[in-house]
């Protein structure tokens, strides 16, 4: 029997963020659907609503024209909606069979027979009696899939399934998914990887900032068209005057930056080499999750990588921590302003004291010099037009834009030679974005350099002098930004190549 899943006007609002804004979509069995979007676009929220983990503020879900009430994961199960999450829900120390039998309704004997049938049918080779911790990521995922198949699902939702898989495991997964599809299971495939969408899926819905921005047949799409839909391609009118100066000094030079992590949710970085000239803005584009987090932390000194050389103003700084790097006049503005760049529970002046640079005298002989910190904070508040002059205010009462101004102010008041920022305007309103863009342009005018890591193509084209793209932990060649078009960036961001 054909399955028809319809989502109608779903909205979900979290404090300060609209995760799903009036989302309507329709899916029919016999096809594989992709739900594409960047991190934070609202895909996961939608999936959680479909699987009953959270309830929407508004909207309805229909399965074969029956209105579903999904108030717990159990409801999703009853209605034959199966779900494989990105992070596995398995008991590592129990055997595969024990994991599968936990919520089974039949006796072990017939369950084993049914599992073996599934293994045979889909050509899965998994030993049912080994503990799950001995399995590879791909095998664990198969266990999760078997768990869904045991309930003969009508709908199977896969959330970022390939993020922990090897290339070969990914291929195997795709073969299985196509088989499921032929058998009439409706498959919804959630991802931010463009190539996978093109090679696997029949239809693709793109989400951006909580909204569905396009629904189309994948055969009509290319990597770059999807990338543009995903990140938004409105080009700004104000553009910085690009300066390409060949004879300027290289102020910052990175050589052989490699990063290897055991954590499958981190991205490895492979041999990055780049340099920044005096007064220049180097933009690093890319779809989030391609290594930007790791790169920022290595540049700021939170992660120290062996055998990397980072030269800043003719000094080797690769082994220094963030505080020491600040003393050489570097400054950092991380992506996560609420739990990393500032502490919401601390007062404004205490957050200012986090940048305890050498000449600040914030802490003389180990003692807090509150007067000095407060004076300094007042100056930041007025110089960077934060809408308060009360330095005793807890930072949690500042809006995102004002908090970001405070953070930038704190980092810039030391007149650093190099500012490294990561998604500095993420989640801000237009006014704050403009202010921050103007500030970043001003820094370059004063012959100070910036590295701008951003997932916002528009922002990068507006602010950078040269741009490179990071994809799967590898950096493309660095291009002068007047030679770059959004289309070119789109191709590189999707893993394609130009020229």
């Amino acid at each position, binding site marked *: 029997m054909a399955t028809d899943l319809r989502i109608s006007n779903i909205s979900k609002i979290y404090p300060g963020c609209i995760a799903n804004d009036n989302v309507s979509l329709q899916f029919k069995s016999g096809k594989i659907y992709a739900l594409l979007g960047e991190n934070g676009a609202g895909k996961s929220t939608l999936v959680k609503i479909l699987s009953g983990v959270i309830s929407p503020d508004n909207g*309805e879900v229909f399965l074969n024209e029956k209105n579903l009430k999904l108030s717990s994961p159990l409801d999703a199960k009853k209605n034959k909606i199966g779900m494989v999450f990105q992070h596995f829900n398995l008991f590592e120390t129990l055997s595969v069979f024990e994991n599968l039998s936990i919520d089974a309704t039949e006796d072990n004997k017939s369950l084993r027979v049914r599992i073996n049938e599934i293994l045979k049918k889909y050509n899965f080779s998994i030993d049912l009696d080994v503990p799950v911790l001995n399995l590879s990521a791909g095998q664990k995922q198969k266990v999760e899939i078997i768990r869904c198949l045991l309930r003969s699902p009508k709908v199977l939702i896969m959330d970022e399934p390939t993020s922990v898989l090897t290339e070969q495991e990914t291929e195997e997964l795709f073969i299985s998914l196509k088989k499921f599809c032929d058998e009439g299971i409706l498959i919804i495939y959630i991802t931010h990887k463009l190539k996978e969408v093109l090679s696997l899926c029949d239809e693709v819905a793109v989400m951006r900032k909580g909204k569905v921005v396009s629904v189309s047949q994948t055969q009509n799409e290319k990597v770059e068209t999807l990338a543009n839909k995903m990140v938004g391609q409105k080009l700004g009118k104000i553009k910085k005057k690009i300066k390409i100066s060949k004879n300027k000094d290289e102020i910052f030079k990175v050589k052989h930056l490699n990063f290897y992590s055991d954590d499958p949710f981190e991205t490895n970085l492979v041999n990055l080499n780049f340099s920044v000239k005096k007064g220049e803005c180097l933009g690093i584009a890319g779809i989030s999750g391609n290594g930007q987090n790791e790169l920022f932390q290595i540049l700021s000194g939170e992660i120290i990588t062996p055998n990397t050389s980072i030269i800043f103003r003719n000094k080797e700084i690769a082994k220094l921590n963030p505080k020491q790097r600040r003393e050489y006049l570097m400054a950092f503005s991380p992506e996560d302003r609420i739990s990393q760049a500032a502490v919401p529970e601390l007062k404004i002046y205490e957050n200012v004291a*986090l940048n305890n640079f050498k000449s600040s005298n914030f802490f003389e002989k*180990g003692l807090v010099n509150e007067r000095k910190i407060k004076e300094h904070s007042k100056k930041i508040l007025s110089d960077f037009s934060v809408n308060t002059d009360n330095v005793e205010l807890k930072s949690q009462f500042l809006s995102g834009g004002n908090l970001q101004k405070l953070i930038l102010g704190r980092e810039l008041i030391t007149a650093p030679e190099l500012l490294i920022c990561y998604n500095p305007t993420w989640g801000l309103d237009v006014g704050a974005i403009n202010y921050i863009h103007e500030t970043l342009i001003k820094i370059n005018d004063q012959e100070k350099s910036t590295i701008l890591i951003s997932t916002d193509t528009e922002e990068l084209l507006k602010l950078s002098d040269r741009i490179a793209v990071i994809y799967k932990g590898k950096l493309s060649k660095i291009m002068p930004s007047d030679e770059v078009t959004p289309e070119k960036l789109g191709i590189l961001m999707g893993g394609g190549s130009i020229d």
Partner: protein
Amino acid sequence: MEDLLIRIEKRNDVPTTLYFFTPFIAIILTIIGGGIIFYALGFNPAEALKFYFITPISNLYGFSELLLKATPLCLIAIGLSFCFKSNNWNIGAEGQLTFGAIVGGGVALLFYNQEGFYILPLIIIAGAIGGMIFALIPAILKTYFNTNEILVSLMLVYVSKLILDYLVVGPWSNPEGFNFPETRQFSDSSRMPLLFDGLRVHAGIFIALAAVLVSWFVLYKTYLGFQIKVSGLSLKTAKYAGFKGKTMILIVFMISGACAGLAGVGEITGPIGQLHRMISPDYGFTAIIVAFLGRLNPFGIIFASLVVSLTYLGAETAQIFLQIPQYTGQVFQGMILFFLLASDYLLFFKVKILSLKKNELGH
């Protein structure tokens, strides 16, 4: 059909006054809860509570006992506040107390037949160092081997208790002690001076008060205190600011261990005067309650240590006058913690009950 939706939301702004007032609410609730328990056991609640909370401190001797028991609780809790404020969960203060007492007691035994003004300071320093070293074990394992400090520090409590057991039964037992599991009595120069004749409260209380003042200064007026505060609120931020995380873990554990070690030394050179198996009625564990009841604030901890000390005394009086086991003291301590955590939850979160008609959900 009506659906009840219960939603739990975080409160954005909790007034500071209310934050420091909730411990009092917890204490009042504990007294009410205690009354109910006494009633269920067949006692007149008012009378039982009077035996518990008033009789013990109705005379000078009782008051001195109150200070005597509050001294180690206060000292240990002050040390623990450094750890807890920076997100390091040192649960093993009892072990650090024991080990401090072993090292300090060892020095006292070296001088068992000698007198001299220098002996007591030596013992005190030895005790602090002993506690510090013992606290360094979980700290080093945490920083360099990524172990869980809760488990390691807790398990080390039993290690130190067994070492003490071995020493008082074996090599350090009193040669003239008829094989009782205890050491020689310490010499007079090894004992804490008593503050008043006939009362047991001793000079250790000044060490505790000094610890309160010093810790207030360090926590609120120094760079170290600032780093501790930031790391406790957000480790990510501490890393981003470039604080030396590992060094800080070692420092807070050392401070905490030294305080516990001092408390141990205070006990053996104060009321006890020798080493034996029962040098502490779990002061090291109870001090965890004291630290939280005092809101990890040095002056709050003074108050909290007096309250919790009273539950020890009350339990003893209740045992004498009402013939109920002195473990009721632990019941009261447990209730205080329970009510404190419960009122904190209501303080930081609000529970909203929304009732919606089912057909309203879609619109």
